[in-house]
């Protein structure tokens, strides 16, 4: 199923689309306010992009430096080529410690690797502790946004879900009441957990430390009670120096939710006294992206979600329409790199308006990459036949003046004469929700030509 088919399901409920659109636009507005309050914002974005580009150019050195320093501090570093090895590694660590209950804080990587079902199938309870993630976990749905996982859910639906699983009052849907119920429920999980699994926002090469940012404090709670902490990271999370965090922490929360900084920005250097820290560094297709010059900048992404909040397509089609772990503009260039056959339609889920590129805190050229992906997908022969054929015909018409003029004349003459049933059929995708405009009698070229003649006649008369 392609993006537009899934989006069509989402937009069936017009009121809901409007609500979703507004909820995300509200976050975008908050982001703007915060960005504008920093006079050196543009400079910060440029520097962040440079730090990331520099890191990519020296990645092997920095990765080895990171491993050396992290090991010196007492952490154990593991490497995983793909999702399978990542999951196996995590499972082995948990098994060796006899872990039965795990609390997990938000990590898009573990979503990408489908760690939860892997561990659950082996008898380990995994509880997502970010409230949004817990909501979608209870609903047995994937997150629809990387920062706001349950943004697609109405509070009434969450109330119902909590009534079923957390025994809240039937019909209760006040966010404060529901959050309080989740607090109680999750506190119990925190206290009973044998291990905490987290993602990583930044890994510092020169110190061997990890930085994890949350608003709820779930990553910190989940790693300061049980003795075992497993942190999972894609290798692109690396930054060279601790001082680079000054740049990234100023950008991250402002871009993500319009906050000056996340409530908790935790720096982990080595394990807790008496505890263990395991760091799993994952490739899972990232090195393939790195080898493509036109697409490698996507690895600079710091997962703020600003491109989703601003995207007119994302806001109106919902995160699930992308059917990928990371939705929105960034997901539309990450996913086809992972599996072009499955995600061929995502780079077309964009108007190429460029708003994503404008807000990206690390200046990824998102809309250029979306366009480049379309070309790549055509070259790979992954575009469905009707689209390929239409593009071929259009290309030929645009290249030949006589065909272009002739086609225009034909359409202007014939369309007004055709009955509705012929015009608005299933092949006219454009006409699904829209009326065709009234067709003009003559084309711009014809009008222009006529005007030129009139003008020269007028001149001659003088």
């Amino acid at each position, binding site marked *: 199923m392609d993006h537009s088919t899934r989006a069509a399901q989402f937009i069936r409920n017009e009121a809901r689309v409007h609500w979703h659109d507004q909820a995300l636009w509200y976050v975008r507005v908050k982001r703007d306010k915060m960005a504008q309050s920093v006079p*050196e914002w543009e400079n910060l974005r440029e520097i962040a992009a440079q730090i990331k580009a520099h890191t990519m150019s020296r990645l092997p050195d920095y990765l080895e430096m990171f491993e050396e320093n992290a090991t010196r501090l007492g952490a154990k570093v593991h490497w995983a080529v793909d999702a399978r090895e990542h999951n196996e590694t995590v499972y082995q660590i948990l098994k060796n410690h006899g872990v039965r209950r795990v609390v997990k804080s938000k990590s898009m990587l573990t979503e990408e690797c489908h760690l939860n079902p892997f561990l659950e199938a082996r008898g380990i309870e995994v509880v997502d502790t970010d409230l949004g993630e817990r909501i979608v976990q209870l609903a047995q749905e994937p997150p629809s946004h990387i920062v706001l996982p349950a943004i697609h*859910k109405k509070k009434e639906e969450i109330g119902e879900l909590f009534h079923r699983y957390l025994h809240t009052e039937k019909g209760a849907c006040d966010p404060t009441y529901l959050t309080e119920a989740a607090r109680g429920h999750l506190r119990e999980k925190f206290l009973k957990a044998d291990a905490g699994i987290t993602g990583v926002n930044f890994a510092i090469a020169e110190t061997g430390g990890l930085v994890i940012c949350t608003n709820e*404090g779930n990553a910190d709670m989940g790693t300061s009670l049980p003795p075992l902490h497993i942190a999972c990271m894609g290798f692109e999370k690396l930054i060279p120096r601790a001082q680079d965090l000054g740049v990234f922490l100023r950008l991250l929360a402002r871009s993500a939710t319009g906050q000056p900084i996340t409530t908790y920005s935790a720096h982990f250097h080595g394990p807790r006294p008496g505890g263990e820290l395991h760091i799993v560094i994952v490739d899972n297709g990232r090195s393939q992206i790195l080898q493509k010059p036109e697409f490698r900048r996507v690895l600079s992404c710091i997962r703020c979600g600003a491109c989703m909040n601003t995207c007119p397509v994302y806001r109106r089609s919902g995160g699930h329409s992308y059917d990928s772990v990371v939705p929105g503009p960034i997901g539309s260039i990450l996913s086809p790199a992972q599996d072009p056959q499955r995600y061929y339609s995502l780079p077309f889920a964009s108007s190429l308006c460029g708003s994503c590129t404008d807000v990206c805190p690390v200046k990824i050229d998102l809309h250029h990459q979306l366009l480049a992906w379309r070309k790549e997908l055509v070259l790979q022969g992954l575009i469905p036949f009707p689209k390929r054929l239409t593009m071929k015909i259009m290309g030929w018409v645009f290249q030949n003046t006589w065909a272009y003029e002739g086609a225009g004349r034909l359409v202007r003459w014939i369309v007004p004469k055709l009955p509705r049933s012929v015009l608005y059929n299933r092949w006219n995708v454009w006409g699904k929700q829209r009326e065709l405009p009234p067709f003009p009698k003559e084309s711009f070229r014809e009008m222009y030509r006529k005007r030129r003649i009139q003008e020269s006649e007028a001149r001659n008369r003088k």
Partner: protein
Amino acid sequence: MTSKQTILQAIKKSSPPEVPLPDLQDLGVCYENPEEQFAEVLKAVGGSCFRVKNIEALNRELKNLKFYQNARKIISLLPGVGEPTVDFESVEDPHHLEDVEVAILKGEFAVAENGAVWVTDRGLRHRAIYFITQHLILVVDAHQLVHNMHQAYERLAFTNPGYGVFISGPSKTADIEQALVIGAHGPRSCTVFLVG
């Protein structure tokens, strides 16, 4: 070949152009009145800031805080501040901190730009206390206030094992319909005293 070698070799196959590591020297905003800025931002993120001259004044303010008046389980790691009822050092297991209502702890320095306070686990038996307590009170020397995050990192070295966290306000979430709710998993309030 180990997975590490496989990954590094795959990365080495690509050769992104060399980009110099930028200099961060000129970055950072300085405020005319950093204390005011700090208090304002902290308030905006759901916390509160008190500027007091000394410990006596701090204790007076403390008694006015409603959650403090009602609290039974209080931890204070600052001598002379508040009236602790729980001996933190004698708690063996961090899980036993579950019912702590108020924790009064030291903040190393504060950041005016974003209302954050830097705290660490240095000499602290259980770092869980920052998150598990119902209400968090951080006491910071007023002279230890930096303008921005760049100045903050100038102060931090990370040469030894340890844990540190910037805390900016109380634990919060907006995961249900973007409605802000204070008190997600961690403290329901975050009060910072700037002393001196």
